[in-house]
């Protein structure tokens, strides 16, 4: 692999961490669940779903204008107490829900925000044939 033009300025091991990150310069929360190239699937002014360039599966998201959300709802309205770390954290799920409330209701937005909150492979989903009797249309 050709040398990277920034390699001389970095130290330690290259790596990957699937963890939400607040990018202060961009005022956005970024979350990659897989270490691979992504293509943007823009849902609305705030939410972009990251899709794998190779498989098109959702592999994370970017939530923009975080300070605007915080100023509207207040940190206290989005904070949760971490029992493990014994400190107050801002809930990314609460920020996502607040962002969802700001936009017009639509099936595309609802599914995209649900996907950002809980990816389909998460156990918090139920096989469709256990709920829907005849067609998917009944569920939307």
């Amino acid at each position, binding site marked *: 692999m050709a040398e990277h033009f920034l390699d001389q300025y970095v130290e*330690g091991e290259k790596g990957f*961490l699937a963890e939400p990150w607040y990018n202060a*310069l961009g005022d956005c929360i970024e979350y990659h669940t897989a270490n691979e190239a992504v293509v943007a699937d823009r849902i609305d002014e*705030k939410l972009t779903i990251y899709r794998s360039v190779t498989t098109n599966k959702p592999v994370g998201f970017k939530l923009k204008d975080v300070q605007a959300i915080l100023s509207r709802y207040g940190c206290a309205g989005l904070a949760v107490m971490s029992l493990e770390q014994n400190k107050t954290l801002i809930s990314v799920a609460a920020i996502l829900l607040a962002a969802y409330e700001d936009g017009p209701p639509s099936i595309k937005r609802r599914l995209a925000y649900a996907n950002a909150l809980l990816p389909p492979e998460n156990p918090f989903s139920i096989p469709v044939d256990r709920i829907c009797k005849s067609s998917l249309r009944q569920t939307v």
Partner: protein
Amino acid sequence: MGQGPVNYNQETIDPTNPNGPRIEAIIPYYIYSRAYKYDSVKYENLRAVKEVLENPKRIFWGIRAYSEGGWCYVGKPTELYIKENEKTDFPPNMVFAVYLTEKYEVFDWISEYMDEEDNLSPKNWRERYRSLVWLSTS
């Protein structure tokens, strides 16, 4: 071995004076070092950032709904890293977008599907950016 926290300056077109001298965009240390440690494929694709800043095809202004300003430089790099040690020719149906603050600090970069009417712009650019301020004629 690293030389400590150094912002990287990359020459690019000045969108406010496209025919004038080039300006320096900044790739901040905290942005690229974070990518190196925790998002290594994204770090590899800083190569595409450099390529796009050197040779942009479109420059847009006004990239956010709730804040003024910001720039989006768009181009077609030659390659894209799709995994840690795996690269491919840049996908023909995509463009590469580099997002900068009003002060020309790079804060994000990502592949986007190209627009149906202009294959050198990101999809639905008219709804997303305030204005197209410069486009390449070559």
